[in-house]
């Protein structure tokens, strides 16, 4: 059996230093490595605990079920976007336009279904169509993005920046800048219903993340996302239909954004023409704090979830703590920056 010198190279986590000896039985070292991988996944848990403790000290309300559900509900829509962006980032793309899709998808549904006379509604289509329309618009936007990015080979950042501006503009255009009110019942349902005493949007968000965890962690489709993000040429050479996977990811992300928009519109019972504006910053911050790499191929859905949870817990504590309005932004930003820096420390290597 050829003895290579490579055991020395095996050590980037310091797990073994010994260049001689036989191949470790695998079981134990494997166990250790898995434990380590899990640990990276749990990198934010300490931070979440710290915030929870601080929160409880700031206000005894913090840990009450009510308030926790409140946090989960208010984060649910944007969390769906984080999930969407996570998929896109894992395949080493970016989708800035998600924040506009959040507004435009339900916006178009409202425009078509809301009866004439109420704001800018056209009342062309019965209200029951609003949910399918919302989702269809999401898919359509995804298809346009994918066309530009995959088919024409344009840079994702650029395309979706352009799309962000266009889609936002279209929403302003069709709504005349006004808010759509009196949405059809079916549009409100998901954003307002309670299932077993917990808002439907919370369930939905949790289920979507659970699906995300399973798909990315335990299916070959999910693994192909990591392969593409890690090295697209190698993925291609391994027989992965990279373009097809990329299409699926980009379209799914837009669809999720539309769903997020639907939840938000339901919760607010309206579609403001500025709906979603500025979300993308939070989405990126959450994904990155949660361990998703901007260089593709790295990070888990669970990590992303802890990222957005942490951000909303911070927001909630700041509100409960009655921090003066003008300092909330700075404090929030500083905490995010610290969390980012810490995730670098736990993440180990320098980021590219």
């Amino acid at each position, binding site marked *: 059996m050829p003895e290579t010198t490579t055991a020395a190279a095996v*050590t980037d986590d310091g797990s073994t230093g010994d260049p001689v000896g036989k191949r470790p039985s695998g079981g134990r070292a494997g166990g250790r490595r898995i434990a380590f991988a899990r640990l990276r996944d749990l990198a934010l848990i300490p931070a979440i605990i710290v915030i929870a403790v601080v929160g409880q000290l700031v206000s005894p309300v913090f840990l009450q079920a009510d308030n926790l559900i409140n946090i989960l509900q208010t984060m649910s829509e944007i969390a769906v976007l984080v999930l969407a962006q996570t998929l896109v980032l894992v395949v080493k793309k970016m989708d800035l336009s998600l924040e506009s899709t959040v507004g435009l998808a339900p916006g178009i549904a409202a425009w078509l279904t809301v009866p004439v006379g109420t704001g800018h509604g056209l009342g062309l289509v019965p209200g029951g169509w609003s949910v399918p329309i919302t989702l269809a618009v999401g898919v359509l936007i995804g298809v346009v993005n994918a066309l530009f990015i995959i088919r024409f080979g344009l840079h994702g950042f650029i395309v979706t920046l352009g799309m962000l501006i266009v889609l936002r503009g279209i929403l302003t255009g069709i709504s005349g800048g006004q808010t759509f009110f009196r949405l059809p019942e079916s549009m409100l349902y998901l954003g307002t219903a309670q299932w077993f005493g917990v808002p439907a949007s919370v369930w939905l968000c949790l289920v979507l993340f659970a699906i995300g965890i399973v798909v990315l962690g335990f299916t070959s489709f999910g693994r192909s996302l*990591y392969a593409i993000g890690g090295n697209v040429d190698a993925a291609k050479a391994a027989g992965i239909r990279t373009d097809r996977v990329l299409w699926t990811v980009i379209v799914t992300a837009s669809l999720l954004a539309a769903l997020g928009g639907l939840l938000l519109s339901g919760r607010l019972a309206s579609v403001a023409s500025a709906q979603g504006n500025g979300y993308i910053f939070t989405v990126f911050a959450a994904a990155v704090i949660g361990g998703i790499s901007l260089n593709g191929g790295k990070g888990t859905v669970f990590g992303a979830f802890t990222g957005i949870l942490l951000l909303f817990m911070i927001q909630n504590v700041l509100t409960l703590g009655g921090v003066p309005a003008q300092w909330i932004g700075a404090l929030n930003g500083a905490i995010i920056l610290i969390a980012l820096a810490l995730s670098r420390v736990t993440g180990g290597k320098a980021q590219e």
Partner: protein
Amino acid sequence: MTKRFGSTVALHEASIRIEAGQTHALVGRNGAGKSTLVSILTGLQPPDEGEVRFDGEPAPRLADRDAWRQRVACVYQKSTIIPELTVAENLFLNRHGRGRGGLISWRTVHSRARELLDTWSVDVDVRTPAKELGVEQRQFVEIARALSFGARFIILDEPTAQLDAAAITRLFARIGDLQRQGVTFLFISHHLQEIYEICDTVTVFRDARHILTAAVDELPRAELVAAMTGEAAAEAGGRRRGPAADAADVLEVDDASLPGVYENVSFRVRAGEIVGLAGAASSGRIEIAETVVGLRAAERGTVEIAGSRPRPGSVPAALRAGAGFVPQDRHHQGLVPEMSIADNGTLTIPERLGPGGFIDGRRRDDLAAAMIEKLAIKTPGPELPVSGLSGGNQQKVVMARALAGDPELLVLINPTAGVDVRSKEFLLGKVEEVADAGAGVLIASDELDDLRLCDRVLVVFQGRVVAETTSGWHDHQLVAAMEGVDLDA
């Protein structure tokens, strides 16, 4: 010198002493510490312990790059060409010719670049962005640049890995000139015959340590290999049996053409047969192999694998038809560096990992453990990211991936590039095993070592199959054919 990277010891109290005017070879297996030594000798990083002396003087401060560059020039193993910049600018980076007012005079830069490339007979426009160069031209730009500093000491870290035979001859001629002018060389290569061809002295590193230094003509090849590997050199295995007389075709390429790349290529590979596709760098052999596995599609002609015709240009179709394959460059197409050995090794066989697209982690790791066992991959376990392996072991993972689907046809492109001598023997041994077990093998390579085990070698020249040899050929015949000289002449 000692150099550590985290807990990895790249150099352990290693010394080397290079005499002025000599051409000194440095050999050792992958990861022995050669390139690390190079980076220390050229001032890119400091040693943790020990020191470098030039002519008895202590080396300059690390920050004083100019002083380093006066003493030593280097062709690094990793490309230092900047793709977006022009050839001229790459040649004169950070030492542009200045014109009036201290601003760069591009005219001067370009004319000096042209002069420089002329002396190397490199025929490219110096205003071409470097990314448009072929691999070989790029390597020559590196070499021309390194030799243009006027340093009396030049380090070449695997300069020939990317060159074909003719280009190597040209390089060696040039080195000969400089040797006669008294220039000192440190030469690193995994091609041992090159050491014997141009070097005076050889130093062997193993496991980050200095093992021996000896005059080249006093160290026979077997002893050199033994010093590198730490064990007596195994004799190459006996002659291959070759395919059974009634073996079926596992690959049939019929009149395939891709204009500008290759034309009217037809050949077949039988079960149990190893067929070589030999040829120079841009002969088209790689593209032909890539066509077989679906990375490219021929414009005309057909490819039939094990009796079925996979959709042209579709890798998954080729894999399903029974192909397994090692791509040209493991870094580029072979591996996903941050993914585990297990995932990389099983990337091509998702259907075997569990029902309904799910991956059963245990089944995957068991499969991977079997591969690790079979190919003797040096790792603590299947869950290690492949980026944590050395080159030779990474190449084994690529091989493992190719073999994972129990292919009927194995297509290998430069399967041993940059792999040390011992790993090379091992990998080629595996290929023979696979063939003996009944798979057909197609090897596209210009490495004589790879081609030596072939039952037949097809020589590709300028996109056409110009010759076919059966085993028993002589090296020079094959080399001549690859260069387009008639084999029978």
